[in-house]
């Protein structure tokens, strides 16, 4: 009497026969009509997969676009960039590193709560790159705000962090309000955020956009 293989095992065996760990398995399949039928179906899937094309040519010539993007990148980006997905570190290390980064940024005066400095942003190479940057930056932003909220930070640092977080939200809301067609809801949110900033720090120096050059 033999033991039936599970459907998952049969599929794995049929689709990746070179990875099979035991030569007894095919014999077991041969002993059972039900297993053999199911194995046959997955084997035909394997055959169809092996018929699939391996290459395709893009509709556009992408090489000039890639080379142009490379040429347009700032030289400082050419060395030592972080990998796309950074290796995970323990939460305590990440929290401490993030808190240290926030404090260091304040000490260096890089987070300007009054908006007197242009953000030192690097322009993304494409709309897709921009969307990915938004996703990554959004995750960092939320984590950093959570750290500021939960950690026992000095009141002044907390206040600066809150102001910086509000300023970012305000700028993002202004940009989003004009994303495709003017959006009344987002304009309302931006107005509320602007009022909140104003009540805490006085009138913003650049009320309508982060990226607009200062007229002062």
């Amino acid at each position, binding site marked *: 009497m033999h033991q039936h293989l599970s459907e998952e095992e049969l*599929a794995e065996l049929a689709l990746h026969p070179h990875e099979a760990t035991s030569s007894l398995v095919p014999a077991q399949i041969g002993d059972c009509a039900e297993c053999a039928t199911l194995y046959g179906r997955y084997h035909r899937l394997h055959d169809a997969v092996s018929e699939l094309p391996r290459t395709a040519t893009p*509709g556009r010539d992408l090489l000039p676009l890639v080379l142009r993007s490379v040429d347009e990148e700032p030289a400082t980006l050419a060395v030592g960039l972080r990998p796309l997905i950074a290796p995970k570190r323990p939460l305590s290390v990440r929290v401490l590193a993030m808190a240290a980064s926030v404090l260091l940024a304040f000490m260096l005066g890089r987070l300007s709560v009054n908006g007197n400095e242009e953000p030192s942003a690097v322009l993304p190479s494409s709309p897709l*790159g921009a969307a990915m940057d938004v996703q990554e930056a959004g995750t960092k932003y939320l984590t950093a705000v959570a750290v500021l909220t939960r950690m026992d930070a000095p009141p002044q640092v907390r206040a600066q962090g809150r102001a910086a977080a509000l300023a970012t939200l305000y700028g993002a809301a202004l940009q989003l309000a004009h994303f495709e067609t003017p959006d009344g809801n987002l304009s309302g949110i931006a107005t509320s955020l602007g009022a909140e900033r104003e009540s805490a720090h006085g009138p913003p120096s650049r009320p309508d956009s982060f990226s607009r050059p200062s007229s002062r």
Partner: protein
Amino acid sequence: MNTPDSEELAQLFRSHHRRIYLTVLRFVRQPAIAEDVVQEAFLRAWKSWNAFRGESSRETWICGIAIRCAWQAARSEGKHVGADVDELAHLESPGRLPHESSIDLERAIARLPPRGRAVFVLRDVEGFSVDEVAALLDMATGTVKAHLFQARKRLITLIEPA
């Protein structure tokens, strides 16, 4: 390891972009998005050139970057964009026309849910191990196996109704 000059990058691109493009196209299903992803992947590869540790081939490394970009794009586009399955009928097969069964399979793959499609393409078409797929898609190994099982089960039904 120095960042490659334009000619070296161009050589790398010419050698590998067609295979990477097809893998990405199977993920995102839209040629225009796949082209953007390939462009972004090579740019990111160039920018993080020094992060390559030589544990795999350079092609596999860039393919990994492209897959992560494609996965991000597929997740964000998946809810809004339908499968452009007819585009998949024009794929190349070196030296011969695409076999009818392979076109059927391409269409069946394109109709899979995003996660099932991603794990099937990586595991059963590209030949990555389950652990590698889990790392590339940032999923648990058990989750990969579950989606893979469902995808395979659905494919044998789609291409060969019982």
